[in-house]
């Protein structure tokens, strides 16, 4: 369970103080699938980053399973991410110098699991890349890279999985494939899934849809259409 209490985020820029998140209070329960939507610049990515513990807000509290992310130091949050968080980036962010398999192994190593090779291979198999284990990111297509990134996000079996426009850089067909993959894996591993998207189809696949505008939640509803 993730709880946000009165989260505000400011940024000092040349044009003065910028309020990116305003008084956000929110609770995400274990096992939920949540889509965050809203227009460009509304603060979706910022909110997602806060939920994943990649940054801390200017004020307010973020409490995950009873532990307060906002009072932790940088390294404690890193350990929290290693243990409980998986992240899929819009632009994949695979390590160029590592093979597909090594990329998937990375979160396992960071979580202290040194015998993860079989698991990593299994995940790559699930995303359909068992024949590309030794390939480097530069040798993979965008869709393939995103599949490796998804395998990497699930590899350490995190409780929470975050994705920022996971299909943003992909074509329609590949995008659908990625979405299916994401939800398949989510069902299998009972992960809490929070994603940011512009795509109505993707948003509608989630049970809960949060719309934010100008740094504020303007709508938060649970869809009747449960599990697809």
């Amino acid at each position: 369970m993730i709880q946000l209490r009165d989260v505000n985020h400011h940024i000092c820029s040349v044009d003065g103080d910028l309020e990116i998140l305003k008084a956000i209070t929110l609770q995400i329960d274990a096992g939920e699938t949540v889509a965050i939507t809203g227009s460009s610049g509304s603060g979706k990515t910022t909110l997602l980053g806060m939920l994943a513990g990649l940054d801390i807000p200017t004020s307010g509290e973020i409490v995950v399973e009873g532990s307060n992310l906002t009072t932790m130091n940088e390294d404690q949050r890193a350990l929290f991410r290693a243990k409980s968080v998986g992240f899929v980036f819009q632009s994949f962010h695979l390590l160029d110098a590592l093979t597909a398999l090594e990329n998937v192994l990375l979160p396992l190593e960071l979580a202290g699991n040194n015998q993860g090779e079989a698991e990593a291979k299994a995940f790559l198999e699930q995303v359909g890349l068992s024949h590309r284990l030794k390939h480097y990111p530069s040798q993979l297509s965008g869709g393939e890279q995103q599949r490796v990134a998804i395998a990497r996000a699930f590899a350490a079996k995190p409780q929470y999985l975050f994705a920022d426009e996971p299909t943003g850089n992909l074509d329609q067909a590949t995008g659908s494939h990625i979405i299916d993959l994401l939800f398949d894996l989510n069902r299998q591993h009972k992960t809490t899934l929070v994603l940011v998207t512009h795509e109505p189809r993707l948003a509608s696949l989630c049970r809960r849809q949060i719309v934010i505008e100008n740094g504020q939640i303007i709508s938060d509803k649970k869809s009747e259409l449960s599990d697809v």
Partner: protein
Amino acid sequence: MFKIAWRFLRTDWRSGELRLLFMSLLLAVTIVTGLTAFVERLQLMLAGESSQFLAADRVLKSPQPVNPLWLDKASGLNLQQAALINFQSMFYASVDVDAEPVLVSIKAAGENYPLIGELKTRPQPYGEITAVKSGPAVGEVWAESRLLQQMNIDIGAQVYIGDAQLKLTKVLVSEPDRGAGFISMGPRVLMHLQDVAASNVISEGSRVSYSWLFAGDKKAIDLYWQWLKPQLTDREKWLDLENSQPTVAVALQRAKTFFVLASSMIIVLAVIAIAMSSTRYSQRHIKHIAVLKTLGATSTDIKRLYTYLLLLLFIAVVCIGWLLGFLLQQLVLMQAAAVLDVALPPLSLWPFLLGAATALISLMTFTLPVIDKLRSIPAVRIFQQASSQELKLSLTSAVIGLAGVLLLLSLYTGQILLSVLMLLSLTFLLAVVVFPARLLLTFIPAKGLKARNWWSMAVANMQRRLWVNALQISLFSISLMLLLVLIGLRDNLFSQWQEQLPAETPNFFLVNLQQPDVASVEQWLQNHAAKQETIYPMIRGRLVRINDKLVRERVSKEDFKRSGADRELNLSWADSLPPDNTLTAGSWHDADASSASNPTWVSVESKLAKKLEIKLGDSLTFMIAAQTLTAKVSSLREVEWDRMRPNFYMLLPKQSLQMFPKTYMTSFYLPASKHKDIVNLLKIIPTAIVIEIDSMIKQIRHVIHHVSLALQLVLFFVFIGVILVMFATVQISLDSRKKENTVIRALGGTKKLIIGSLITEFMLLGLLAGILATFAAELVLLALQKWLMDLPLQLHPELWYLAPLLGLSIVGSAGFLAARKVTAVVPMQLLREN
């Protein structure tokens, strides 16, 4: 295009992309200009200081006045001149016939004396020392204080030299060209040249030495010598630093080599720094070029754009770099000039040219090829290339760039061999480090990140980045090697100089002793706690035959004169091989080791032997006191003549020599407090001649001390350069590391893990580089000792720990700073990057 170039520069500067390139270019121009100017002017200063040994640049010595045409020629060439006459005379303090005169050694000096250096005087026997630039005026004399004591006279007294009545106006402390003084020949008196005629003391046949001092432009002096050389006879001697002060001359020569080496090293370091940053800069422009191409820019446009851009950058850097370099050397030199007590020598344009050329050549060789290649390939392909961000430094352009700059340097210094040696050792290092590393890369594929702990992550990282790491290691080790070579060389030179003139170096020679005097001399020296050297017999002899050939036939007249064999040689015997001698051939026999089965042998000094083509086993015939003596060459000896101890060209068995007339000689060290007692020794043995070399030794020490100081300063410059280059080298992989480590942190890697692994990795790199550098430096040092410096071959175990330690600490701390930079990014940033 010019506008775009300007805009690119501005945005690049703001984004920080240009800063590293700008800084390394600026550093290169500043330090190359500064150091080469510093070295150039420092050498002039040291040369100026050592010219004081002669009080001139060159001296022509003759026992009689020389052809006035010779002096006219010198004036024609704009050489400064001064005339000197040295002679001995009686010195009276009163016209009274009964007054007891004292034998003094007089130097009569004309206008302009001394041309270089200063005379030190006191207004009263115990007054403050003041330095003056000219000798006594007409009608005045200056004398050493011991003469004032001896004669019981004061400043202002009327004194008499021959028929001249003169006024004693100052106490003479020292002249720059005092050299070795004969104490027994009396205290020094300085008078004006014009008063010599009035004194009537110089007549036909009196022992007088005339000197003409010359100073001026090196070219004019060389021209003059070319002209004068064929006209000189046996009686005239041409003195320069080389033949009058070999110790100082050799020290200066070696220091010069050291300086050239240091300048080339700074250039190498500068080229490396520029190479790295400009390659990195051009790689970062790959995207710009691709965008420009898609917007329709032709390849000519792109070429012009980057030419403008680099030109603007170059001009800015050179202007600032020249200014900084100039200020840097000016500041240090002003201090040095104050210490050395000489004027600041002029500054040539070379250092500025060299600084600019280093920047220009390396900027061109490292940026243009990359851009040129990009110009000709389609935009789409460039975008693909841009994604693989690894930095690739082209080896060929590295070698071309270095060769270009080193060529320039060798033109500047005239030391081509040195440049070639540098280039070879650098290529060697690159080959030794980079190629095996590349081979390893193909055989041991890296296995993941091993992000379990910082140690395994560091090791895995090292393997994975083998290519870049190999490059970094070789750059680190080149920098460290250069530093080590200079340190090793400095230590070699220092210990060499230390050995040459250790504390308690003999400061007096005692010659012309008779057999019965020997015991009393030994007694006297013992009573005065003098450090005494062996007393050697001295027999005058002339070498007349080598095997069956007369010596005069065997060698050309020219060689013969130079080797000194036409003069009488001093022969001696020794109980054992004298201390400054090393056998180069044959074997040594002690003085009494001659027997029927072992005929008369002779041990010959090796340089003379070489000149006269004397070989082991030759038989030499000497003419001694109208008798002949034939001896077989049993050994050749190398002699270090500059150790202030008696040494001989020919050593023979005692029994062959002892029947001939002989005198004895020795040298000894007497502490300054006891110098005044020398007079007593002369009272005991009136025939003995004491030659004082104390002030000369002091002067030599003084110059060598300054040369050492200069060496240290230059070394310090280089050390700073090395640190900067090593820090810059760490930047090579910083970009890709930054991105990679941010991702790792987003995935849950802690800062501790990342900083720990980075520091470990860099420390390992530094350690490896240090070990390699040590090997390479020893090899280079051996080569330098053998071929360039003519120094004894030796290893430097005291340096073996230094490079690994320096590598570990410098690269480690550079790694720490880099790691801090790498981890300063908030992982959130990843969400905003594409």
